[in-house]
C-alpha cells in the first residue's frame, strides 16, 4: 500500500531528474564496485608488504623463484612475467578500442576488438597456469627442511652442504646430522615451499590466484557481452554502454596486475 499511497504530496517526492555526476547508474555502480575491489587487492598487497619487511633478510626473492621461460633453458628472471604484462596491456588496448568503436555505433569493429580482448585474456590465464605449475613442481634439486621447519638451500648437487637463510653455510659432520633429521622438499604448496618461508607461497597463491580469478571472470563477462554484440542487442538499444562497463572492469584487472607485477616480481 505504502508504495502508492496517495497521502504523500507528489511535490515532496524527488522527480528523478538527472543522474548525479552526469554518469549513468550502471557506470557509477561499476565504479563503486571497483573501488571496493581495489581495497581488497590493496589489503592483500599491503599484508604482503608487511611480511616482506618483517622477514626482510630471509624472504625469498621472486627473481630467484620465477626464472623459467617456455622452450628456453637456464635462468631468465622477469622475462616471462614481462611477457604476461605485455599481453595484459595489449588486451587493455583492444578493450578500449572496442569501447571507442561502440561510441561510433560501429558494430563490426566492436566485434573485432572484443574478440581480441577475449583472446588476450585467455592467453594470460593460460600463462598464469603455466607459472603456477612450475611453482608447484619446483626445481629438480629441491631443498631441505630441517627438523625445526627451516628451509635451507643445497650448496651442491651432491646434497652434502647447505645454506641457512640469513647467510650461514653448513657442511661436514654438522650438515650430515641435520640432513638425517630433515626432510627433502620439492616445489610449493600452502604449507611448505622449497624457496623458503611458507608465507611466500601462500601470498603467491592468494594474490595471483585472486587476480587470476578476476581475469577469468572478466573473460567470461566479456564473452557474454561479445555474444550480445553479435546478436545486435546493443544496436537495438541504441548504445554500447555495456561494452564500456565491462571495459572498466577489464582495465581494472590490468591495473591490479601493474601493481602485482611491481610489488611481487620487481621490488
Amino acid at each position, binding site marked *: 500500500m505504502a508504495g502508492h499511497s496517495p497521502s504523500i504530496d507528489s511535490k515532496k517526492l524527488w522527480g528523478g531528474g538527472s543522474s548525479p555526476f552526469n554518469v549513468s*547508474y550502471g557506470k557509477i555502480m561499476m565504479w563503486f564496485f571497483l*573501488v571496493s575491489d581495489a*581495497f581488497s587487492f590493496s589489503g592483500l598487497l599491503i599484508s604482503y*608488504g*608487511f611480511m616482506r619487511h618483517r622477514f626482510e633478510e630471509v624472504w625469498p626473492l621472486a627473481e630467484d623463484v620465477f626464472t623459467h621461460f617456455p622452450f628456453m633453458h637456464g635462468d631468465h628472471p622477469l622475462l616471462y612475467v614481462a611477457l604476461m604484462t605485455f599481453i595484459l596491456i595489449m588486451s587493455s588496448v583492444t578493450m578500449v578500442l572496442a569501447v571507442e568503436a561502440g*561510441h561510433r555505433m560501429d558494430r563490426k569493429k566492436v566485434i573485432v576488438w572484443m574478440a581480441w580482448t577475449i583472446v588476450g585474456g585467455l592467453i594470460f590465464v593460460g600463462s598464469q597456469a603455466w607459472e603456477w605449475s612450475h611453482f608447484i613442481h619446483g626445481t629438480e634439486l629441491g631443498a631441505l627442511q630441517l627438523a625445526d621447519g627451516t628451509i635451507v638451500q643445497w650448496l651442491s648437487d651432491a646434497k652434502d652442504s647447505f645454506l641457512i637463510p640469513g647467510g650461514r653455510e653448513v657442511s661436514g659432520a654438522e650438515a650430515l646430522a641435520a640432513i638425517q633429521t630433515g626432510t627433502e622438499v620439492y616445489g610449493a604448496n600452502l604449507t611448505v615451499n622449497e624457496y623458503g618461508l611458507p608465507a611466500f607461497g601462500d601470498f603467491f597463491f592468494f594474490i595471483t590466484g585472486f587476480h587470476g580469478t578476476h581475469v577469468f571472470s572478466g573473460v567470461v563477462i566479456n564473452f557474454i557481452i561479445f555474444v550480445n554484440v553479435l546478436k545486435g542487442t546493443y544496436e537495438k538499444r541504441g548504445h*554500447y554502454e555495456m561494452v564500456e562497463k565491462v571495459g572498466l572492469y577489464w582495465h581494472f584487472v590490468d591495473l591490479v596486475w601493474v601493481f602485482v607485477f*611491481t610489488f611481487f616480481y620487481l621490488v
Partner: protein
Amino acid sequence: MDFDRTKEYVNHHSEEEGKSMRKTIWIIFWVLLAVTTVEVSLGLAWKDLGLAWSFVKWTFIILTLVKAYYIVAYYMHLKHEYKNFIYMVAIPYIVLIVYLIILALNEAIFIHDTDVLM
C-alpha cells in the same frame, strides 16, 4: 514508463572524434609499453649498473604510479568525468590506503627490529 535512462548519458562520437580518440589510445599504449620496458630492463640490469637498491625500488614504485595514472585517467576515462566524481572515487581510496600502508609497514619494521628471529 522507461526507468532505464542510460541513453541520456551516453556520448556518441563522430568519425572525426573517433580518429583523435584512437590516436590518444595508441599514444598511451606506447607510454605504458615504454614504462614497462624501462622497469624490466632496470630489474635485470640494476646490479650490473651498480645502482643503489633504494633508488631502484623508488623508481619502480613511481613508474608504477605513472602507469596506474595513465590507465585510470585515459583508458578508464576518469579524467574526463565530473571533478566531484573523480574526488568521490579517488579521495576515500587514497586516504585510507596511504593510512594503511604507513600503519602496516611501520609496524612490520618495528617488529622486525625488536624481535630478532635468527
